[in-house]
């Protein structure tokens, strides 16, 4: 699914690795009662058999250390779903998963696991098993990304270098690293980075550093005329930026969750 072999012509390069953002369905166990899970899973699937048929399923082993993974996987298979991996298991479960042919998704960061837990609690009716479709920026998807991409992104270059001005309407995201813009960021443009953002021209658009939650990330720019500044989710809009901070070389950072703008 995530591996793609495209190049049939070039024999010396029979495949390539690609990191892709995908939606996966996660089976979140609420009660450790396998018979109930089996029965309710059957009922759930009966509502939309075509939708579920052969769907890849990730088992969230977060809650129960004692759960019998092998039997859960078999129950899933019995319902014509395909268990592909586990997430949030302890080391013992991870070993077991490997034994029974399941992949292991790396542990979720505190922030996002927190969110998904809350989501589970708020959204779920009290049933023993629940299928929780996870999309966008939530847990499994990020994990798919993290598991596959580092080979390409982090070893190659964690810093993204942009030599041209970033124009109005353009958006640039340095995933997994820093962003260096050698020219200006225009009004209506948006630059994002998981790490720091360095702008050697004027910043007239929006700059968001540490978008995955890194509170140590900073923004550096020459002439600050930003529409919006954000570090790890803390933000300031143009009107909140003091006039006297706007000229010259400036850095923006978080100090105890307070955004500071300081001349250099």
């Amino acid at each position, binding site marked *: 699914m995530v591996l793609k072999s495209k190049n049939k012509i070039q024999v010396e390069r029979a495949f390539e690795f690609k990191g892709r953002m995908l939606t996966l369905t996660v089976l979140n166990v609420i009660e450790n009662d396998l018979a109930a899970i089996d029965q309710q899973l059957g009922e759930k699937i009966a509502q939309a058999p075509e939708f579920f048929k052969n769907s890849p399923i990730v088992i969230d082993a977060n809650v129960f250390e004692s759960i019998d993974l092998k039997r859960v996987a078999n129950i899933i298979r019995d319902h014509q779903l395909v268990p592909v991996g586990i997430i949030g298991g302890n080391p013992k479960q991870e070993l077991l998963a490997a034994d029974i042919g399941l992949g292991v998704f790396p542990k979720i960061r505190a922030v996002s696991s927190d969110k998904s837990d809350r989501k589970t609690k708020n959204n779920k009716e009290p049933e023993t098993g629940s299928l929780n479709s996870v999309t966008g920026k939530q847990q499994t998807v990020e994990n798919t990304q993290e598991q596959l991409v580092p080979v390409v992104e982090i070893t190659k270059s964690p810093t993204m270098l942009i030599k041209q001005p970033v124009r*109005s309407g353009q958006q640039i995201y340095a995933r997994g690293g820093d962003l260096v813009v050698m*020219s200006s960021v225009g*009004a209506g*443009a948006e630059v994002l980075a998981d790490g720091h953002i360095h702008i050697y021209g004027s910043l007239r658009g929006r700059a968001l550093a540490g978008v995955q939650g890194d509170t140590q990330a900073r923004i550096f720019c020459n002439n600050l005329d930003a529409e919006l500044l954000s570090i790890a989710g803390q933000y300031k809009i143009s009107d909140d930026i003091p006039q006297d901070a706007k000229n010259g070389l400036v850095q923006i950072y978080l100090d105890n969750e307070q955004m500071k703008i300081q001349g250099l």
Partner: protein
Amino acid sequence: MAKIIVITSGKGGVGKTTTSAAISTGLAKRGYKTVVIDFDVGLRNLDLIMGCERRVVYDFVNVIKEEANLNQALIKDKRVDNLYILPASQTRDKDALDIEGVQRVIDDLAKDFAYIICDSPAGIEKGAMMAMYFADEAIVVTNPEVSSVRDSDRVLGILASKTKRAEENQDPVKESLLLTRYSPERVEKGEMLSVEDVKDILAIPLLGVIPESESVLQASNSGQPVILDEESDAGKAYEDAVGRLLGDEVPHRFLEVEKKGFFGRLFRG
């Protein structure tokens, strides 16, 4: 090898068509065989400004749809040799343009012409995309006010990513800035962005500054490209811009408030 130049801006009413008419006329006057294409299908204006609206029989869309051949649609200018106009259709809309059709017409024109000037419609929708897609060079027409500058910035971003040159990883489209409706008096009063402000924001080379001038409106209304009005400041400024487009070093004029001396006051009133 014909050079394809798009006249674009994003914002409407900044002087794209006036500029297209002036630049194409200027190039033809200097002996280059030039055709100017109106991409503003449905809001055809170029033929009015070029003063050939009564001679339109077939148009660009007819040629794309193979309802007419190029020679039937091209209108030869009566004042300047070497100048041809390919008018837009007034009864169709932008959906009548398709990339293969436009490519075919441009390829055909390229065999015969030295310069192909594409007059883009406003906006960043299909018509504008088609006008810029095949461009080698882009003249970005901007008024010295923030919304126009912002739109130009957006268009520059699109030129760098959505053109044929960008998609095929060739050398980028060569971009230059033409600042129109410039009034040094209003810049001095702080009512208008200065040339330096705009250059600083857009960060592309300056092709020319066309001063605000009554002669532009007169020229449009009489269907006479303003560059043919050799007495007017706007006409002279366009003439300079054409020189720069061809690689001449021409100093910029009309950037400062004119200091009228005694005789100046007497004679120019």
